[in-house]
């Protein structure tokens, strides 16, 4: 009896705590933070860099309007959003090379034939990206960007009288799901566009065996790269390393590059990439004294920092998720380890990193192959942000989304040029000839057809929570280094 009474009491106290949590949930976190005198968090969805130098909000051209099509279903085989042409919303309209079909001369529509994925009214393209899985929404930006471009295209154009329809497929961060998604895409879609998956090896053979043209945001595995019908707006050849970054730091921090560390997360593609980086940097004139993987379950980074101190490291490069970069920077700060430079790829060019790293992030360098997201002097960037806001108001642009947008534009321009000759085979053939693709200035020239790594990029630096480009000119280009 007394036991049951105490159980009731415990339930009541827990219910009270739950109620406290529920009441709290009505409060805006920023209000709470301000009331507590703390910082406001500020992640807020603002992209790194926030507003333009002139104070205007990047990509704010369009009224919010209604979102075309359905929201991202994320289910394998869910019907896609079409970006209804009639309700294009208030997204910006581009002209000239920024028009939906660019300056491509449209091919004659004579002889245009309906085929898999093409009806009298629509051309269905599939986007198979990681939406659910261990990190929910990890590559949702690729799907959003593809939908954004389709909405833009459908608002003004068509290909031989057909609008675009997107079939949204979820690859669930699983090679098996990638295989299922591409098997479905083979049956339903004319091509796959803007896909992004961590385990993209699964569907490579499915795509190749049915001749499905696959224009991805980025490829992550060698199997996908080796697939003869698969391409990516960001072409990557494992083993080839962009030489312009090491050259930049060799010039700027000559002494530091002679005592460099290559640190990486001990998982996935990072391991192979880091080994290639080390070899390439050494061949570029650096001296990598410390090459170290850190396990995913590691939480105490101090011993690694101690090792770097002991070895006299002066320049640190890291390959891994930004959350772990934050841990590494914390440990470096605690141990009083201040290398001349800390460099990472554009993974850290992210508002969340800026928030979480706080002061420790000051001075870090990011290596990027894209223009800055708030650089609306690039008209295509303004278009991307505007239409992204149309399909998902408040969505934050990112690296994979940008390349997915670029992939969608590439598809549209190639398909438009082919006109009546459009088939899966003819599209693959056309894609094989694509060189120096920049997505209208969004990113460095990419060798889509030959699938070689780009040799250009820019260097950004974080200062007081704001990223700015510190490398000269538009993009620097250098040699392509062999990392094998």
């Amino acid at each position: 009896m007394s036991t049951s009474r105490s159980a009731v009491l415990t339930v009541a106290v827990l219910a009270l705590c739950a109620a406290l949590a529920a009441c709290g949930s009505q409060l805006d976190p920023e209000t709470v933070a301000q009331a507590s005198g703390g910082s406001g968090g500020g992640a807020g969805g603002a992209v790194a860099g926030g507003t333009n130098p002139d104070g205007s909000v990047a990509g704010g051209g369009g009224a919010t309007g209604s979102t075309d099509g359905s929201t991202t279903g994320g289910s394998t085989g869910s019907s896609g959003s079409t970006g209804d042409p009639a309700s294009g919303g208030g997204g910006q309209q581009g002209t000239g090379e920024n028009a939906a079909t660019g300056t491509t001369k449209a091919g004659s529509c004579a002889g245009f034939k309906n085929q898999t994925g093409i009806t009298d009214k629509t051309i269905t393209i599939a986007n198979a990206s990681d939406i659910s899985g261990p990190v929910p929404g990890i590559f949702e930006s690729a799907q959003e960007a593809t939908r954004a471009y389709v909405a833009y295209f459908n608002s003004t154009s068509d290909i031989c009288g057909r609008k675009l329809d997107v079939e949204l497929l979820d690859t669930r961060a699983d090679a098996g799901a990638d295989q299922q998604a591409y098997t479905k895409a083979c049956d339903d879609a004319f091509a796959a566009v803007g896909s992004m998956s961590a385990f993209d090896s699964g569907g490579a053979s499915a795509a190749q065996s049915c001749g499905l043209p696959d224009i991805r945001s980025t490829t992550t595995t060698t199997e996908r790269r080796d697939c003869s019908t698969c391409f990516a707006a960001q072409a990557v050849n494992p083993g080839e390393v962009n030489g312009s970054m090491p050259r930049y730091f060799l010039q700027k921090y000559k002494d530091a590059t002679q005592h460099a560390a290559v640190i990486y997360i001990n998982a996935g593609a990072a391991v192979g990439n880091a080994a290639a980086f080390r070899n390439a940097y050494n061949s570029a004139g650096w001296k990598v004294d410390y090459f170290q993987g850190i396990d995913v379950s590691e939480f105490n980074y101090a011993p690694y920092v101690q090792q770097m101190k002991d070895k006299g490291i002066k320049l640190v490069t890291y390959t891994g998720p930004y959350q772990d970069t934050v841990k590494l920077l914390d440990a470096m700060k605690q141990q009083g380890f201040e290398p001349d430079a800390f460099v990472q790829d554009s993974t850290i060019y992210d508002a969340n990193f800026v928030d979480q790293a706080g002061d420790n992030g000051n001075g870090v360098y990011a290596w990027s192959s894209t223009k800055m997201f708030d650089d609306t002097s690039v008209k295509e960037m303004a278009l991307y942000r505007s239409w992204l806001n149309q399909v998902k108001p408040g969505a934050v642009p990112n690296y994979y989304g940008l390349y997915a947008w670029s992939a969608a534009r590439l598809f549209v321009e190639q398909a438009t040029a082919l006109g009546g000759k459009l088939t899966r085979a003819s599209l693959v053939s056309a894609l094989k000839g694509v060189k120096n693709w920049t997505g209208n200035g969004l990113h460095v020239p990419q060798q889509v057809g030959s699938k070689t790594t780009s040799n250009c990029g820019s260097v950004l630096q974080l200062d007081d929570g704001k990223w700015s480009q510190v490398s000269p000119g538009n993009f620097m280009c250098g040699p392509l280094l062999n990392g094998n």
Partner: protein
Amino acid sequence: MSSLLSFTILGLFTGAAYAIAASGLVLTYTTTRVFNIAHGAFGMVMAFTFWDFSQRQGMPTWLALFLVLGVVAPGTGYLVQRFVTRGLGEGPVSVSLVVTVGLFVGLIGLAQYIWPPEPRTVPPFLPDKGLEIGDTYVTAHQIITIALSMVVAGLLYLLLNRTRIGTAMRASVDNPVLLRLFGGNPDRVASLSWAIGISLAALAGILLTPVIGLSYYDLTLLVINAYAAAMLGRLKSLPLTFVGAMGLGILQSFAVAYLPSQGSLAGLRAVVPALFLFVVIIAMPQAQLRIGQVKGIVSAPLPSFSKSIGWGAALLVLVALLASGMSDANLLLVGTAATYAMVMLSLVLLTGYGGHVSLAQFTFAGVGALAYAKLDEPNLYGLLLSALIAAGVGALVALPVLRLTGLYLALSTLAFGVLMDKMVFQADYAFGFNGTLHAERLSILGHSITSNGSYVVVMAAFFVLMALALLLLRRGVLGRLLIAMRDSPAACGTLGLDMRWFRVALFGLSAGMAGLAGGLFAGLRGTIGAADFQLFNSLPLLLLAVVCGVTSVTGAAMGGIGLMLLPVLQSSHPEFAGLIFAILGFGAVALGRDPNGLANLLFGLGRRLDRRFGDRVRSVVPVLPLPQPRTEDDVLAEPDVPLKEVPAHVSSRG
């Protein structure tokens, strides 16, 4: 020398984190004999609660700490003991492991549902304070963690050894009845143990989240490392656990300092805790048999052989019909379900019949898949050889721990899974880092099975054949031995049965079945990699096996379909992704005590329907043979005289 000191100091912090986590684990085990796999998951949920109170709602830190450590955590521990784990320590180890694995998965799902993914931070205590020791800077937060780990160890030692309630806690696990006779209340002391245990999990979570970040998985992974420390103290000795935790922390720190960062030894660093666990388990003394109890369960009905063949044929016809009408994408899902079902069949043998738990059954499937791809013999010979290799590996895992009982065997499979994930599968001679291997589809007697539909039918045929073989085994002498050993090892020992080698063979056979499934799966997929067989996939596998029924073939089939559908449902209803996990986890908690699971309910439903409508149906069907015996219990000797039909109203009364 100064470098050695630096790495020792830095390792102490890691050790302190393990010590706090492990001490809660030891407390609950030593007082209730329940090894709480979900200890880290409780810490994670409490850390999220602390974040919610202190950051989102803006409560003062002291108040949030008080509420979490003093109210929510102990209250949760109390409720968990009262409604979930009560009496589990007296039951089979497999049940307590499955229930806590259920809590583990359920809590992760619950956290995802309540606190959807977004960046969250918990600031450290006294962020700008610290201490310079030689060349090393130690933050105030680290000092607090190390100090608290010592305080916790000391207080718990005093509680268990110097107080009346502590003595009662220890007595409750040795003999609760005797404790009650002496005026103690075993339930109350068990509740107290769980309340303190979950509070310690919360403390570990709150102290560690500023360092490891607030995520669903990181803390749970960390606590798995702490198992090794707890095992050094044989899950009983707090001082040895503390020594183990500190030793492990320093060992990991030294591994960073002194192991080469390149070459074959580089991978050792990541598996230091798993190796530590494996070595400690192997060094454990002979387990003592517990007498005076039969941990048996009422098994699911065993169908007659003719009925088994009938159902198997029906399943094959159904799959063949599906194969003829389904799209290739959906057929891949059916093939995946068949793979899972076959792996679950291996669990029916090991867990359902044998009473042993494997926390890494997918790893054995991975071994089979790896062997199949490497052998490059896409035929029955290659498939059989792959299964044999997996069986050999399974036997090897059981061999070093053949002196030990269920829990240690289960934990050794966990350590084995970690070692395979991080050292073997990712090695260049296996799948390679982020790499995959190509695997051809199986050919039978020279006929290559290329279409998805045909291949899926073949997979279903393998499932049916494995199931029939398993039922035959269960019906025979071996099956009866298995059940006897599961129900009362002490009785078997008394009768002179040597269970050790039998257990190794059982483990090997089960791993072989999983390996066969892995080989077939490799053929289905065409390309396979290490990511397809990650250790953590084995936990939902075990849960669904138990929820659907780990003692029956039907349960395995249902579980295979359920496990295939799980990610599909999460994908189609992303808003309920966490909730689905929570339902699965807590479903296992609810059903874990009855390993016959949903399948048994289905059988019961069938019997009820038969009682309700059977006669009516039979009366309209002109000629029907007499009903066959339905269950093993129903099996009767063939009567010498013809059976007499009994009127329906009479039989229903019986």
